[in-house]
């Protein structure tokens, strides 16, 4: 750790684009993710954000935590607002207006990305706008109080699909949105986690430098919704990767590369057990999840090896 203290300031900007003083819950993995994303992007950026936790905790009028130009309009449209920004800047520059360079970045939670805004994101990817979409995935509608989304993992208890006497919580498997992004044929897709900050920063930087639509999917641990102690955020993020539940990888022009190829996965139980949202899971259900995670990880590994 001591050596990291010497090197980190050289590797990472000290500049905070996402200022301290926002109102996120303690231990919020999403606020950490946004902060790291902005460190990677620097000043020359315009952010379009969907309605959600990050919008609400960072911009209670007349305050703002954003030190870069930022716009929020609605829940389902951050990708198309970004498209408009990109098209507007292009037209103005072409017609002679002098403007500073600006990477256009859209951000949304899993509700905005997986559910309500998926059509707008698909449209923006298909049209090929030069922008980066960052999904801040905390696996449920946390802003409105932990309702299930199509990003909620199998077995998790949420307020709209709670575990009960006859229910085991979420009965569907998490939608594979990175694969949907890849299916659009966009030049770059990656998964990242604030528990691996250098990997996250490198991926966001790479995504921002590529011309065309790029997608970075960040697992954002939510102590409030996942029912974990607030000092467990980083640990749980690591366990998600080490168990293979949330593998870190990149897809460049369709070519898959595992960022950390784990020769052996930790049992998913290590990841699930500390979380209150999975407390009700039986050994049988844990096993079902284990089988699915193992199979999906193997499939991903094969994809990465074959290409």
């Amino acid at each position: 750790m001591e050596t990291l203290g010497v090197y980190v300031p050289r590797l990472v900007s000290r500049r905070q684009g996402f200022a301290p003083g926002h109102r996120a819950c303690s231990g919020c993995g999403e606020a950490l993710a946004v902060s790291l994303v902005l460190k990677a992007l620097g000043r020359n950026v315009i952010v379009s954000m969907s309605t959600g936790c990050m919008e609400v905790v960072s911009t209670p009028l007349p305050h703002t935590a954003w030190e870069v130009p930022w716009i929020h309009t609605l829940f389902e449209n951050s990708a198309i607002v970004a498209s408009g920004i990109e098209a507007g800047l292009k037209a103005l520059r072409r017609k002679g207006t002098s403007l500073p360079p600006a990477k256009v970045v859209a951000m949304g939670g899993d509700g905005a990305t997986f559910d309500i805004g998926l059509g707008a994101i698909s449209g923006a990817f298909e049209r090929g706008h030069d922008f980066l979409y960052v999904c801040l995935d905390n696996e449920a509608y946390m802003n409105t109080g932990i309702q299930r989304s199509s990003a909620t993992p199998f077995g998790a208890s949420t307020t709209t699909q709670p575990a009960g006497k006859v229910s085991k919580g979420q009965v569907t498997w998490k939608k594979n949105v990175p694969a949907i992004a890849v299916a659009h044929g966009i030049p770059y897709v990656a998964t990242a986690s604030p528990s691996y900050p250098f990997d996250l920063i490198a991926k966001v930087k790479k995504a921002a430098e590529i011309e065309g639509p790029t997608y970075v999917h960040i697992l954002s641990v939510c102590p409030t919704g996942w029912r974990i102690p607030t000092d467990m955020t980083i640990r749980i993020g690591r366990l998600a990767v080490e168990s293979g539940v949330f593998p870190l990888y990149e897809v460049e022009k369709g070519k898959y590369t595992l960022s950390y190829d784990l020769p052996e996965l930790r049992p998913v139980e290590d990841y699930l057990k500390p979380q209150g949202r999975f407390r009700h899971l039986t050994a049988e259900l844990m096993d079902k999840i284990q089988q699915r995670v193992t199979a999906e990880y193997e499939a991903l590994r094969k994809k990465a090896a074959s290409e």
Partner: protein
Amino acid sequence: MKRMGLESSFAIAEAVKMADADVISAYPITPQTHIVERLAQLIADGELDANYIPVESEHSAMSGCLGAAAVGARTFTATSGQGLELMHEVLYVASAMRLPIVMSVCNRALSSPLSIWGDHSDVMAVRDTGWIQLFAENAQQAFDLTLCAFRIAEDPSVSLPTMVHIDGFHLSHVIESVVLPEADEVKKFLPPLHPLYTLNPDKPLTMGAFAAPDLYAEAKKAQDEALRSSREVVLEAWREFGKLFGRDYSPVETFRGEDADVLLLTMGSFSEVAMEAIDLLREGGEKVGGIRLRLWRPFPFEEFRQAVSGAKLLIVLDRAVSFGGPGPVCAEVKAALSHLERKPPVIGFIGGLGGRDIPVKGFQEMIHRGRDKAAKGQFDDFEMFGVR
């Protein structure tokens, strides 16, 4: 200046071209498609230097406009009926965030049953969205008012989105003689867009923060005041337009209103037919006249009260139904008159729904029917006209 035969939709596209719009973000819907098809062709032929975003829904069409306008681009879109409804929530954001977007609405009935034909159901559904709203009744006005819309919307003291309503098919698809100005004349009328605030990394700012109960009401009051006071800029734009191009517009336009006992209020292209009916009735010695609402939002209270002050009866035609309530324009008109001591009684009709035509004869009949009802004291909420 040149005169040529143009479809109204093409006339609007011509106005957008002459305004040198930067971004068009649009989704196809009948009967609006001719406008954006024409714009796409103008871009394809290099006659208009703009970025066309072919979005995947109307919700996204208007959202794309938000982004483009927020960086200071001159932004245009067009829609109709269901499309306007799908962008409904975005319309409020455009006005509240003071983004000077211009939109043509080719008025269309709302489903169900599905109808691609014209009425004002879509207009009335977006009445309260905070946009400046103008009504055109022929192709020339469609061109003129679209050009005016950019000037009004972009005036720094206004900075509000503006809709120009044209009747679907009845106007959008009609070819008429249109006078087009020269490019340098348009430049004189429409200065370049210089918005007060834009998204720019050199001057970072936060747009679209949320407001707690301690600030929301103040934000809404400020927005309403901005819309109300845009009236002055609308008047100034029309004065200037009249001086440069010789065609005059005002918020409430009267037709043969002098000494008229009975006034018929209409909006949009049906006004032209109503005026023919009025001419015929005048020939027969009947003291009737017409008034047309050119400016729908902000509602021109002063001009409206002035226009009807001498009348003994006001007949209002609504082309939309407020289910379970009165005709929406009629209700508005009655409210505008309510506290006046001297005011004409009001008779309301609802007609022309879903593309149903009202011919000259129909308007003559409507005026007579309204007069008879008033004479008998039959002041009901409204009567459906020309319906089986």
